[in-house]
């Protein structure tokens, strides 16, 4: 197949080049703007780290808040999602399919609507409203379907049914089977789900902007604030920090996905 596919395709090549420019030029401009003394005069004004330092002193707390929030969100989706994925994979009833469908609604329905619903229902409980817990709830609602879907399809592998049955016949209790046999067998899928949840949580803005308070700000909320109120160099430096936090995780995610594909060939 690949012998004939190397024929020149000038039109597709041109489109691909234009798309690459469109996707990369803004990132390059932004990274440059965050590292030069003055955006208007550009590189001639010299390179500096002072904008990064300024971002760190003003918005540093949002970076750690977002990372911690994303980690807690991963832990919660693990606890809620993995048993749920198992039950959905083993149940053949119509209700299970319907439940899976309903669970995915927070992804299909715009985040703004979910945030609004949460504020209307629980916004009066000050202790909750003013804590990161409120944002966490929103993030779990939004990311849980991704964890459940990824892990549930892994639990459905036919060879797992046989292994589970064998463990049962040998007298393993449910907890032993679940934690000792099933979870290790689908671990790559769980890892992929964890990384996906982490990325989604750290970049979430639609829900978070509605749910945040001045004391509970995440990285994207801080970004929106800096774009509106700080000079362009500061916004750029802040964007650079976000990219530096997110890129290694994305690469790890891709590595895991490739590894899973190689190992399970599906």
């Amino acid at each position, binding site marked *: *197949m*690949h012998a*004939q*596919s*190397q024929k020149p*395709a000038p*039109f*597709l090549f041109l*489109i*691909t080049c234009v*798309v*690459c420019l*469109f*996707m*990369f*030029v*803004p*990132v390059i*401009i*932004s990274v440059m703007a965050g590292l030069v003394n003055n*955006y*208007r005069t550009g590189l001639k004004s010299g390179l500096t780290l002072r904008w990064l330092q300024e971002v760190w002193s003003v918005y540093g707390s949002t970076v750690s808040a977002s990372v911690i929030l994303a980690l807690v969100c991963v832990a919660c989706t693990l*606890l809620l999602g993995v*048993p*749920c994925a198992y039950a959905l994979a083993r149940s053949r009833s119509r209700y299970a399919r319907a*439940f899976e469908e*309903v669970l995915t*609604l*927070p992804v*299909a*329905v*715009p985040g*703004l*609507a*979910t945030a*609004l*619903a*949460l504020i*209307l*229902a*629980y916004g009066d409980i000050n202790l909750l409203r003013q804590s990161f817990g409120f944002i966490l*709830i929103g993030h779990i*609602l939004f990311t*849980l379907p991704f964890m459940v879907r990824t892990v549930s399809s892994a639990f459905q592998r036919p060879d797992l049914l046989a292994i589970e049955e064998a463990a049962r016949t040998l007298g393993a209790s449910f907890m032993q089977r679940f934690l000792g046999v099933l979870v290790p067998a689908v671990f790559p899928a769980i890892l992929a789900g964890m990384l996906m949840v982490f*990325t989604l949580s750290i970049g979430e*803005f*639609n829900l978070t*902007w*509605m749910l945040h308070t001045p004391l509970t700000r995440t990285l*994207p909320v801080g*970004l*929106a604030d800096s*774009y*509106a109120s700080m000079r362009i160099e500061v916004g*750029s430096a802040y*964007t650079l920090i976000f990219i530096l936090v997110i*890129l290694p995780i*994305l*690469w790890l995610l*891709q590595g895991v996905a490739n590894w899973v594909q190689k190992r399970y060939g599906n």
Partner: protein
Amino acid sequence: MSGHAAAQNRHHRLLLACLAPATVFFVAFWILPVVRLIALPAEKGWETYFLVLTDSRYMWSMINTVVLSLATTVVTLVIGGAVGVYLARRRFAGRQVLLSLLTAPLAFPGVIIGFFIILLGGRQGWFADLSSAVGMGRMTFAYGVIGLFLGYLYFSLPRAIASYTAAAEAMDGQLEEAARVLGASRWEITRDVWLPQLAPTTVACGAIVFATAMGAFGTAFTLASKFEVVPITIYNEFTNYANFALAASLSIALGLVTWAVLFLARLAGTTSSGA
């Protein structure tokens, strides 16, 4: 009760126990709040539900959003399809790196993309420098419909490129070879060989792109766009005018339109794969 039935029963209860934590969380924090949201506009009278149809300002906001999302979806599918097919069929050094760089923006929040558009077409942007250099004054496009469209394109393209690259890699090369031997032109191969094989990807990816565009908030928020879309209208009604019933009504309308498109795409997906 026989031993088998008892084991079945125990198994059933274990499954329910596994399901319980997620269910409790979901009912408490999504189902109940959403039921409340759906009921809220009724307190202001039943006509509140239909304001999106009866009040021209909200109706235009909805039409803007749907047209912008449709345009984004169509252009994204065409361009993303072309890039995906190209990248799937070429082998060159750095291909994997290019692909991972092209899909990285999937993780960017909408606000960053709005900022990128400002860097390109805002008052201090690259396009303004260019237009003033050729003596046409500092031109901007970031704050109108063009800026919004480019921003939506920016966050939609990575998803389409990733999906189409994966789908095109799995395409049957022999079909295309056969068509070529039989004398089919480039255009005929595209229409009769590529498009049918990529149809399931087009339906699934198109639905997700459309739904994401409908609900997108961060990009329009950063651009403070003059072209009003429903998420911004909802935000303004809620935050600036404290008009909760109206914000709820618009959220319901937005959710319904988005969900209906996803549902139709799912139906189309199952019929096309069943055929």
